[in-house]
């Protein structure tokens, strides 16, 4: 009886793992199977020409660049806010601080807010500030979207830090700031992971940028210009009745996936480089 239990449970666990792996392979497989044949050099080096959405020549460089600009800007903004916040609630506030608890709880709520709500909120904010749909609007809204995720994952790794290290630093007469600088170095792999998660969520999200970044066939050259994004580009191409264009949507999806994969691998590489002296 005992062994039967063990066996059943093992089967369930293996099954669950298989389902996840299967779904992942199926999704990536479909995207690549449909997308790779339409993936031409033109796709990644040219902006849409006239009639691109009807099957004529051109590419999605506008969307690639737009997405890259938006996620880079959003990352910079959210890092500048997340890192100090996480350092503050972990190293400056006492362990059982109520304020830290409230912050964590708020972040959990914000994390659960759907991205379309961020989009709507960002849009309302832009109307209030008098900004049109633009790169800047997209950056701010995506930053708001990824910040809770980034803070929460940074917070988790920071809390796992052994208590010895801060104590060792303080007993050497470090100020809190000097201590934080050293601890950040130790936390570098965690920071990289947080960035990765944030990029993954931010770059693939269509709802936030729908109203706030707008859409354009050109590459934005200033913050006040509208910017195209890959998710929206995929959406518009999929909506086309022309089969060729639909296939290009899959090609765009391949590009998006590859960008995320490249980011993933390079982040892992740099993280192992930074953590050379990790204890």
């Amino acid at each position, binding site marked *: 009886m005992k062994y039967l239990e063990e066996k059943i449970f093992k089967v369930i666990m293996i099954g669950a793992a298989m389902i996840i792996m299967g779904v992942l392979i199926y999704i990536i497989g479909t995207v690549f199977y449909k997308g790779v044949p339409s993936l031409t050099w033109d796709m990644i080096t040219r902006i849409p020409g006239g009639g691109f959405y009807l099957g004529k020549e051109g590419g999605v460089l506008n969307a690639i660049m737009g997405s890259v600009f938006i996620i880079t800007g959003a990352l910079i903004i959210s890092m500048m806010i997340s890192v100090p916040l996480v350092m503050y609630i972990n190293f400056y506030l*006492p*362990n*059982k601080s109520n304020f830290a608890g409230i912050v964590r709880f708020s972040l959990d709520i914000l994390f659960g807010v759907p991205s379309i709500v961020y989009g709507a909120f960002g849009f309302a904010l832009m109307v209030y500030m008098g900004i049109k749909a633009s790169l800047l609007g997209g950056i701010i809204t995506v930053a708001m979207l990824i910040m809770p995720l980034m803070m929460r994952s940074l917070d988790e790794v920071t809390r796992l830090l*052994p208590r*010895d*290290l801060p*104590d*060792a*630093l*303080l*007993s*050497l*007469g*470090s*100020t809190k700031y*000097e201590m934080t600088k*050293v601890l950040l*170095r*130790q936390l570098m792999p965690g920071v990289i992971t947080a960035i990765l998660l944030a990029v993954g969520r931010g770059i693939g999200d269509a709802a936030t940028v729908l109203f706030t970044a707008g859409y354009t066939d050109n590459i934005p050259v200033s913050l006040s210009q509208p910017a195209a994004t890959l998710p929206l580009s995929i959406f518009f191409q999929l909506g086309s009745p022309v089969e060729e264009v639909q296939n290009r949507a899959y090609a765009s999806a391949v590009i998006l996936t590859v960008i995320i994969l490249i980011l993933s691998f390079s982040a892992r590489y740099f993280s192992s480089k930074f*953590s*050379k*002296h*990790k*204890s």
Partner: protein
Amino acid sequence: MIIANHHLETLTVNPAMEINRTYPLRKVAHDNAIKVENLDVYIDDQHILKDINLSIPEKSITCIIGPSGCGKTTFLKTLNRMHDELPEVRIKGKVYVDGLNIYDKGVNVIDTRKKMGLLAQRPCPLPMSIFDNVAYGPRIHGTKRRKKINQTVIQYLQYVGLWDEVRGRVRTSASKLSIGQQQRLCLARGLAIEPEYILGDEATSALDPLSTKKIEELFIQLKEKYTVILVTHTLRQARRIADNIVFMYLGKIVESGPTEEFFNNPEKQLTRDYLSGSFS
């Protein structure tokens, strides 16, 4: 603001303190380097240390012994104000270090900690190279000149006997060292901030016998220049290296005195029981 720089003979004292002590601090610290008066420590509502009164003579090794949970580590942490980080800890009483109550208002925590080199139970190298570990203290305390830093690092690595072992790889990660080497590195790192006191919190309990021996020998060497205060679990270690013993039980000091006297002729029944191993 008090400038705790022991190259200075006299220290500037803040106005609040001026009333009772304006004399050079080094002279006050003549033979009682640390003087604890009526010290009570509470964590939340628990009374951890009860009315501790103690004088620790300078340039000697004082070992604090006692069963687990008797407050040894808590006591050690009051000496370099590590409890400051925990709001649930309340401290009453006075701790004079070099004649200056470190719990007085206006005393700089950093200056206090800089006077105390702490050696923790488990070595905890900083996430940087061996060199940078030792150089960290001097750097944050304002040494800029590269040459001076190099000198300091080599000097203290030599002092703890690590220099010959790591000579060719001081730029490699400190976490690659063996645990005994790491502990000596931590000692070098602590010495590099040029403290006057060395605090050891069961500093050898995680080490193998050989590394333990090396650290003990270092402590004996250190007492020529520093005042060493150790918390230890091993009575034999205390007997080997201590000049004075303080025996604590349930947050109180039961008995204290010179090592030989303490072990050969303890006054209290409780001490005798502890020494004979009736409880631990």
